[in-house]
């Protein structure tokens, strides 16, 4: 970290530190599907993958090859790890397009080719810090490991779990066993009618740190609310990834670094967990002039 006082000032204004590197490198394995269970609109798959399970940390993800031997889909699909333990890893998959649909069709006994665990974990707060975890859609599943770890570290955990409709909620019971859970749905088909962010606003005063996983719009709203409340927040982003292992540079987001400068950072290896106040949500999909190296692209300071 540089000693430049101007930079120090910017850094000081941020409430989060970048998530640390994972303790263990990923592995690539062909593993068996040990369990399959529809959960609302999603499918939960449990994989017999001891080497991944023992390495996995909350917030990390795995990447599946999809379509089988003759597949015309070349790129892996990234899926957040829901739970890891006892030699097994579970994931919750939403059938969005051809790749994820193929995944949801896997049956017990089928094998899948998976790489993981990938990416960085949610950083832990000081022991005992009350925490808020916020999940949208299948994103709630990715909070299970974190919530358990927070509990183990003495943090009381409040969970806000939302979705468009009741069938797109996820992991409510599992979270309920570890935390106090508030459910919201856009259409009121379960829990309170409204957005997770409405519920977040009512409880944010009670916690010392906020975590979120879900669609980008929700992450942005949650991060903004946390920052406005003076709380650190950590969000797990979902950005289109070609490789998942850091070699292709397709998955970048404008992220403010420890030195206060914004870089296009890879959400696969420098994320998917970022400090909520480090993601420049408004600039996603744009090239702001102050991103490192924007000048070389011909973008000039205004």
């Amino acid at each position, binding site marked *: 970290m540089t000693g430049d006082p101007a930079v120090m000032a910017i850094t000081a204004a941020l409430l989060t530190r970048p998530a640390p590197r994972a303790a263990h*490198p990923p592995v690539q394995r062909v593993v068996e599907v040990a369990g399959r269970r529809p959960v609302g609109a999603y499918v939960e798959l449990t994989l017999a993958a001891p080497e991944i399970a023992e390495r996995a940390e909350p917030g990390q993800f795995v990447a599946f090859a999809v379509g089988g031997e003759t597949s*015309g889909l*070349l790129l892996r699909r990234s899926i957040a790890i829901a739970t890891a333990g006892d030699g097994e890893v579970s994931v919750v998959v939403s059938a969005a397009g051809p790749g994820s649909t193929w995944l949801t069709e896997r049956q017990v006994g089928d094998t899948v080719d998976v790489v993981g665990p990938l990416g960085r974990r949610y950083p832990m707060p000081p022991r005992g810090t009350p925490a808020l975890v916020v999940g949208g859609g299948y994103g709630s599943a990715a909070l299970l490991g974190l919530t358990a770890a927070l509990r183990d570290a003495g943090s009381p955990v409040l969970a806000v779990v939302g979705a468009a409709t009741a069938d797109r909620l996820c992991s409510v019971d599992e979270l309920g066993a570890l935390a106090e859970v508030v459910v919201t749905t856009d259409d009121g088909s379960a829990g309170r009618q409204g957005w997770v962010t409405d519920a977040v606003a009512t409880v944010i005063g009670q916690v010392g740190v906020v975590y979120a996983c879900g669609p980008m719009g929700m992450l942005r709203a949650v991060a903004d609310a946390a920052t406005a409340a003076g709380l650190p927040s950590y969000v797990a982003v979902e950005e289109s990834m070609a490789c998942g292992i850091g070699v*292709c*540079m397709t*998955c970048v987001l404008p992220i403010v670094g420890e030195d206060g400068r914004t870089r296009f950072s890879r959400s696969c290896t420098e994320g998917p967990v970022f400090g909520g106040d480090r993601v420049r949500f408004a600039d996603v*999909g744009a090239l702001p002039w102050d991103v490192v190296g924007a000048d070389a*692209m011909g973008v000039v300071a205004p």
Partner: protein
Amino acid sequence: MTATETGVHGHKRRFEVDLRTALGSVEVPSPVLTASGCSANGAELEPFVDLTAIGAVVTKSVQLRPRSGRPTPRMAETPSGMLNSIGLQGPGIDGLLSDDLPWLAERGARAFVSIAGTRVEDFAELAQRLRGVPGVLGLEVNISCPNVESRGEVFACDPVAASDVVSAVRAVADPAQPVYAKLSPDVTDIVSVARAVTDAGADGLSMINTLLGLVIDPDTMRPVLGGVTGGLSGPAIRPVALRCVWQVHQALPEAPILGMGGIRSGLDALQFVLAGASAVSVGTAVFNDPSAVARVHDELAAALAQRGFASLREAVGYAHR
């Protein structure tokens, strides 16, 4: 004289195939390399591949200054391929020299450094900066960049512009570092470009770079990529890449070729070798299989052995005979 002619064709051989090859005048233990932009600068592959055992790490094309690259979305998946528009994001030559190349050199991994620029002098300056750098085995000149001095026309699409770059690089580059020119398939006559750059002093040819493509998002009804068009890569383009290698080896049998474009398996690599490549790069397939570079090496070795070749060299260009 191949083992085929001595009668062992089709029989498994017990002894090992000699897979050594050369990039220009520099010998490497394996003909299988990474492809520029598809393995970053090597470090991320370490969990999956022994970087010292592969031919070389071809680094992401570097320019003089650090570059942010283009805004996202930067990729679109396509049938058996993908489109990318990264915009050469990277640390610039200073960053490469201070961080990435020492990291590779410490481990004993060979770097084949891809350089890029928008004017001839940029390329020359990069070559100059890379003289004598430990672990730098040679240079790959990525001429698939827009030439700012020619209304943005890509260097590789014009034999004259392409050879200007190559001769400028060859003039200042470390004499011990072979210079490969990386050709674009998006030309009417790739042989004329290949001829021009070898005449200009290229020690070898890397081929092919991506094909220019476009995908429209049926939801937004706009091009998917921020950069509108992007580069098509992956198995989808393999027949085009093989055709380019075939044509150029046919016309210039003495020019060493680093073949690439859709290589996913040892049998794919074998096709490039038979067509005339003396080494190959594995690019997009790494995204599907992070250990692809090592696996392709092993599969190629087995495929050559099965076909009775005692060495890779015997197989280079065999399909033309």
